[in-house]
Each structure stands twice: as structure tokens, then as C-alpha cells.
């Protein structure tokens, strides 16, 4: 069962391919940042601050906290840039991974004290895209990503969105949806496989 889902579906032409060279350009910027180039960092900030702030805000929901966490993320990117390893993923992927992780850390540490009500998000999670992109380029790309989510089954999409945008663990997702843990794990993984192929992400 698990081996089947590791097989890649036949690769289709992606509808959501990125503009040519944009990730390479970011990688080049990040290499300059790694050498302490503050101007390169400004350019990097301008290129990634929208998605970074967007995902942090999506997970945390509170603008003031999101601003704080975004600042932490961007300073961390500056600090850690010398250790960025291009072989392990794109520059943008790296930055956004740091951002999502930080946002989730914040949610879980807040949860430890307030034990946020799980059910709230269960009601909310269909409002995943209520943030309006400001820039045209970002908006177009955002549209492409949203469209690629359409390749997911409703069940996969629900699980992926709760995990990524809701910041929930797979256990919490299972609890919210009232389904077995194993089912959630499979949905998350199969969902990512479908998205990956739809988006044309190269492994």
C-alpha cells in the first residue's frame, strides 16, 4: 500500500511552472547574502517577504504576531545564509520552509499555554484563501498554486490545508476530521505527491 503511493503518476505538463529563472535568480541573491551583501538581502527581502508574511499570517492569524515572526524569519535567513545548501532545495523553498516552521512553532508554544480550541479551525479551514495578494506577479502565481490544489481530492485537500495552513499536527488533523491517524498520514503524503507532479517540482 505504501509503495504504491510512492510511484509517481505520469508527469503531465505543469500548469503552474514558475517564471523561467526566478528561482535561480533567488539562489544567486542568496549566495551574495551569504557573503554579507546587505543590498542583495534587500532584494531578497522584496522577493520573498510577501509569501513569508502571507504564510505566517495564514497560520497565526494575528497580524502583530505575524509581523514579529516574519521579522525573526528574515533575520534568521540572513544569519543562516552561509549554511544554505543549494543541493537540498531552492532558495525560496528554503526561506519558506523556515517561515512555516517558525509560524508552527509559535502556534504550538502558544497552544501549550492556552490550548487553543481545535474545533474553531475545523470550521475555519475552508477560508484558506482570504488574504488578497497585492502584487500582480504574486497574484498570478498564487492563482496558479491555488489551481494546482484542484488536482487533490477533497479529502486530501482538507488534510493538507489543515496541516499546512492550520499548523496542526497529523494527530490533530485526525482528531478534527474524526478519521484514523494512518489515513491522515496517507492523505498528506499522497496529496503532496499529486501536487508535486502537478506543479512540476523536480525532486
Amino acid at each position, binding site marked *: 500500500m*505504501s509503495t504504491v503511493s510512492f510511484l509517481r503518476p505520469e508527469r503531465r505538463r505543469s500548469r*503552474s511552472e514558475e517564471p523561467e529563472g526566478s528561482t535561480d535568480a533567488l539562489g544567486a541573491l542568496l549566495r551574495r547574502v*551569504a557573503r554579507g551583501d*546587505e543590498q542583495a538581502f534587500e532584494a531578497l*527581502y522584496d522577493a520573498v*517577504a*510577501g509569501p513569508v*508574511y*502571507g504564510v505566517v*499570517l*495564514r497560520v497565526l492569524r494575528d497580524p502583530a504576531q505575524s*509581523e514579529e515572526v*516574519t*521579522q525573526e524569519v*528574515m533575520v534568521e535567513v540572513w*544569519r*543562516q*545564509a*552561509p*549554511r544554505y545548501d543549494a543541493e*537540498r*532545495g531552492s532558495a525560496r523553498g*528554503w526561506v*519558506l*520552509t523556515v*517561515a*512555516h*516552521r517558525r509560524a508552527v*512553532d*509559535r502556534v*504550538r*508554544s*502558544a497552544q501549550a499555554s492556552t490550548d487553543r480550541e481545535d474545533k474553531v479551525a475545523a470550521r475555519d479551514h475552508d477560508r484558506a484563501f482570504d*488574504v*488578497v495578494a*497585492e*502584487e500582480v506577479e504574486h*497574484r498570478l*502565481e498564487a492563482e496558479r*498554486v491555488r489551481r494546482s*490544489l484542484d488536482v487533490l481530492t477533497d479529502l486530501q485537500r482538507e488534510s493538507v490545508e489543515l*496541516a*499546512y*495552513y492550520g499548523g*496542526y499536527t497529523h*494527530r490533530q488533523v485526525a482528531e478534527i476530521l474524526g478519521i484514523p491517524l494512518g489515513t491522515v*498520514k*496517507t*492523505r*498528506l*503524503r*499522497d496529496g*503532496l*505527491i499529486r*501536487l*508535486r507532479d502537478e*506543479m512540476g*517540482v*523536480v*525532486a
Partner: protein
Amino acid sequence: MTTVPPGVRRGDDDALDVRDLLGAYALDAVDDVERARVERFLRADDVAAAEAASYAETASRLAVAVVAAPPPRLRTAVLQEVSRTRQVAPIAAEPVRHAAQSAGRQRRTVRLLAAACGVLLAGTVGLGVTLATRGEPTPTLVAAGDFATGTAALVEVDGGYVVLGQGVADLPADRVYQLWSLQDGGDPVPEGFLTAEDGSLVGDVGDWPAGATLAITEEPAGGSPQPTSDILATVST
């Protein structure tokens, strides 16, 4: 039954397929113990590591769908902070893996530790207790020891080892806790260093020499080749 704290149960590990967690892992939907477990697996399996990298890349694109314009003052604040922030050296010294986790992530693991220590203190069960995270058996407590103000423990997960501490004093930024393995009168072998946050420590030490005693000292940032302080805690395995 009544003497066993919630979240702790006896039982054998159901050897859950760690591959099943790769999707959840890429979406940050795992807890600390699962993360350590997945990362240990990925270090040993290049094919799975490439698979996981492609999931991470895919997951990161989901951020683009919720792009939002941050307030302009944030840019100014970030650039100001960056101009007075030192970057890390290109190659890491040898920090213990996952040492730089935030307090929030650690808390969950520390709750496991607390449960483990509770069991030991109560004397109800011996070593080899399996800690369960909501019904799923995961780490096994190997041994625990005392700090001046807290507890340290070595926990086994899937053949790898995680060091946990709680009630540990936070150190100034230029000091770290360093781990050592001690064996049969030999010199202490450095096993990495880590920092405490909110009184807790968690570090993935990977392999642990069988029967070696874990010792913890306080050292300057970057660690020391030999201990330079008194031993703060030992855990005999």
C-alpha cells in the same frame, strides 16, 4: 494502572513505517520525536531524502497561494536588525542535531520526559517503559539522572537516541551544555553541545555507545575538546 501517568504505557513498539510520516514531516505536522525519527531515517537513506526534499519544495509553494503584503515598517525594522546581526560561520561546529529548537517544540518532548521521570520516581515500573504519544508507542526511556535543579534522560527511538533535560538553567548566549560519553575509565568523548530554552534540553545524539554513561557539563559556546567544568548531571545506561 492508576500509577501509570497518562501518555505512558507498557508495550512493544508497533514499528510504524517511518516512511508514512514523510508527508506530515514536510508539512511540519509532526512532533519532536517523530521529527527526530524521520531525520535519522533520511540521513541513512538518500532515495527517501530526495523524496522528502521534493515534498518540502512542494509544501513551500503552498505559501505562495496566501501571499500578503507585509507593512512597510517591517522592511525597515528587518534591514535595521540585519545590519547589526552577525551571520553564522559557513560550517557548523558540531552542535547536537535539533538543538536549536524553540521552546514550544521542546515542551511536548519535555512532557514526555516528565511522564518518564514520574514513572521512575514513583518506582512503579522499571526501565524499558514505552512512552506513548496519544496511543502510538514511540520512545523508550533508557535511563534518567538528576541535575541540580532538574532531570536528564536518555531516550531511545528506533535504534537512535535523544537526550532530554528539564528544569535546567538557561545559560548566557556564550555558554552551552555539552554532552559526553564516559566508558570504563577512558577519557570523556564529546557528543555534541546544545542550549537550554525555558529550562529544557532536547538533542538527537544518533548512536549511543552501549553501556556508556552520559555526562553533561557547561562549556563555552562552540563546545570544548575536554570538559572544563564540573559534571552537572550523569545518566548511567
